[in-house]
C-alpha cells in the first residue's frame, strides 16, 4: 500500500510580472516529499528552487503569482486555503529556515522575543511559559549559554549561532515539514558541517520531513533520501539519491555531476 505523501506539488507554474513583462520562474514543477523523508531540491542559481520553496506556503513576493498547478499538504489544498488557514499553518505545520540568519532575523528584537513570539502565536501559552520553552529549544540546538543568547540581539551573535537560534525558532511548534533554503551557504565550512549534523539529528529525534534546497551536490548526496534537480524553472530529474547519481537521466544532471567529479568533491 502506497502511503500518501506529505507534500505533493503538481504542475506548479509561478510567473513574475516585471512591469508588464511576464517571466516564468517555475515551469510545471512536479514532485513530492514523503513523511520523514529528506528531499533535496538542487540546481544552479536562478533555476527556481527558492521560488518553488516559497510557493509551498504562498510566501511569494507581491509581483509573483502561482498561475497554475496544485500544492497539497497533508491532505489540504494550499492554494484554496483562506488567509486565516494559511497563517495558522505557517510556522506550525510548515516552517522555514533561510540562507542568511542575521538578515532574516529582525534586528530590533532579541532572539528570545522572536522565538517566544512564534510559540505564543501557535500554542497560546503565557509569555513566561513561552520564554521557558525557548530556553529549552536553544538547549536542544546545542547552544551552550541559552539565557545569554535569549537576551541577545542577532547582531551580537555569530552566523552559526544565529542559524542555530533560527532552527530553534522554526522547530518551536514541531512542524511536519521544514523547508531549508540554502541554510548553510553563508556559513564557514566547519560551521556548515555542524549545522548539517544538527539538522539531521533533530530530524531523527523529532521526526519531520525536510525539504533541503542547495546548489551543492556534495551536500545533496550526503544528506538526502531523494533528489530533485531543477534547471531553468523545470524539474529535469528526480528519484532516489543513489539512482540519480548513478544514472542521471537529464544531460544537465550529468553535467552537474561531472563538474563536481572534476574538482573531486563527490
Amino acid at each position: 500500500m502506497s502511503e500518501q505523501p506529505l507534500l505533493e506539488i503538481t504542475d506548479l507554474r509561478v510567473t513574475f510580472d516585471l512591469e508588464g513583462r511576464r517571466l516564468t520562474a517555475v515551469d510545471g514543477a512536479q514532485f513530492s516529499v514523503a513523511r520523514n523523508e529528506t528531499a533535496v531540491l538542487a540546481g544552479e542559481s536562478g533555476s527556481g528552487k527558492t521560488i518553488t520553496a516559497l510557493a509551498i506556503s504562498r510566501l511569494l513576493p507581491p509581483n509573483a503569482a502561482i498561475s497554475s498547478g496544485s500544492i497539497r499538504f497533508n491532505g489540504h489544498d494550499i492554494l484554496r486555503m483562506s488567509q486565516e488557514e494559511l497563517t495558522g499553518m505557517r510556522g506550525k505545520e510548515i516552517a522555514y529556515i533561510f540562507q542568511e540568519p542575521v538578515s532574516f532575523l529582525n534586528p530590533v528584537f532579541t532572539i528570545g522575543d522572536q522565538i517566544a513570539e512564534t510559540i505564543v502565536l501557535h500554542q497560546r501559552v503565557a509569555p513566561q511559559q513561552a520564554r521557558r520553552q525557548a530556553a529549552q529549544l536553544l538547549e536542544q540546538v546545542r547552544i551552550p549559554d541559552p539565557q545569554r543568547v535569549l537576551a541577545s540581539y542577532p547582531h551580537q551573535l555569530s552566523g552559526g549561532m544565529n542559524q542555530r537560534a533560527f532552527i530553534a525558532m522554526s522547530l518551536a511548534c514541531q512542524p511536519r515539514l521544514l523547508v531549508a533554503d540554502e541554510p548553510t551557504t553563508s556559513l564557514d565550512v566547519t560551521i556548515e558541517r555542524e549545522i548539517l549534523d544538527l539538522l539531521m539529528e533533530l530530524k531523527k529525534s523529532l521526526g519531520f520531513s525536510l525539504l533541503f534546497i542547495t546548489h551543492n551536490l556534495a551536500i545533496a548526496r550526503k544528506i538526502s533520501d531523494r533528489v530533485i534537480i531543477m534547471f531553468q524553472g523545470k524539474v529535469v530529474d528526480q528519484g532516489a539519491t543513489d539512482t540519480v547519481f548513478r544514472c542521471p537521466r537529464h544531460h544537465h544532471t550529468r553535467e552537474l555531476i561531472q563538474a563536481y567529479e572534476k574538482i573531486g568533491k563527490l
Partner: protein
Amino acid sequence: MSTYIIRRLLGIIPLLFGITVVSFFIIRLAPGKPVAVEQSLNPRVSPELRLRLEKQFGLDKPLHVQYLIWMKQIVRLDFGRSYIDSRPVMEKIAERIPLTLGLNLAALVLIFLIAVPLGVRSAIKADSAFDHSVTFLSFLFFAAPTFWLALLFMQFFSIQLGWFPISGLTSLDFEYFSAWGKAGDSIRHLFLPVFVAAIGGFAGLTRYMRSNMIEALRQPYIATARAKGLPESAVLYSHALRNALLPVVTILGLSIPGLLGGSVIFESIFALPGIGRLFYEAVMTRDYPLIMAEVVITAVLTMLGNLIADISYACVDPRISYKER
C-alpha cells in the same frame, strides 16, 4: 555612554567659539551701524552725540577687543542689554519664547500625528490610488510657499467662512474674557498658524516615512515574520514599523533647534510677536547684543539637538552603542 556624552559636550565648546567668531565679525562688517538708526530718526543728532553713543556701546574699540569683551560677558551668561531699549537681552527673548515654542511644538505634534500614519499607509498600499494622491498632495504642499498658503487659508477660513480670526494673538476685547474664554480665544488665533506651519513639514515627513516603511518591508526578516504565521497586521505594525520608525527619532532630535527658531515671514503674516520677528528687528537695527544672543542660543540648541538625536538613536536601536571599545 556617559563618557561619550561628556566628550560630545566638550566638543561643543570649540564649535561654539568658531560660530560666535564668524557671526560676530560678519554682523559687524555688514553695512550700517546701530547708531545710524537713531541718527536717521532724529536729524538733530550731532556727530558728537554719535561718537558718545559709540563710546558708550564700546563700538569705538578694535573688533577683536570688542569680541573679547563680549566673550567675557558670555562666559558669565550675561548677554548684555539691547541697544534699542536698554532692556536685558535675555528678558526680551524670554518673553517671546512661550508663543514661538508653543506654536512650533503644536505644529510638530500635528506633523507627526498626520505624517507617520499617512506615510505608513502609503507604503503598505504602494502604487495604489491612495498612495498616488498622498504623493501628489505631499509634493503640492511641499512646493507651495508658506506665505502663499497662509494668505489662501486666511482668505478662505477667516474671511469667507469666518471660522478663525485673521491674525494677531488675542481679540480686541480679550481683557474682558473669563480664563476659559481667554484660552479659547488664543487657541482660535493660533489654529491657522499651527495648521499652516504643519503643512509644509508634514509633506516631507510623509515621504520620508513612506520610503522608510517600503525599505523595511523589503527586508528578509519580513519574509521570516510571514513564514512564522504572523497575521499581516503584526508583520506590518510590529516587525516592519518598529524598524521604519528608527530613523524618525533622528528627525525629532534635529527639530529641537527649530522649536525656538521662529519664522520671520510666518510671524509677520499672522502678526504674531514671536522670536522670528524679534531677530529680524534686531538685525535691521543692528542690535548686536540681541543678534549674538540669538546666534548663541540657536547654535547651542542645534548641537544639543544633534547630541540628543544620537543618544536616543542608541536607546531605540540595539545595534548602535557608544560604549568605549
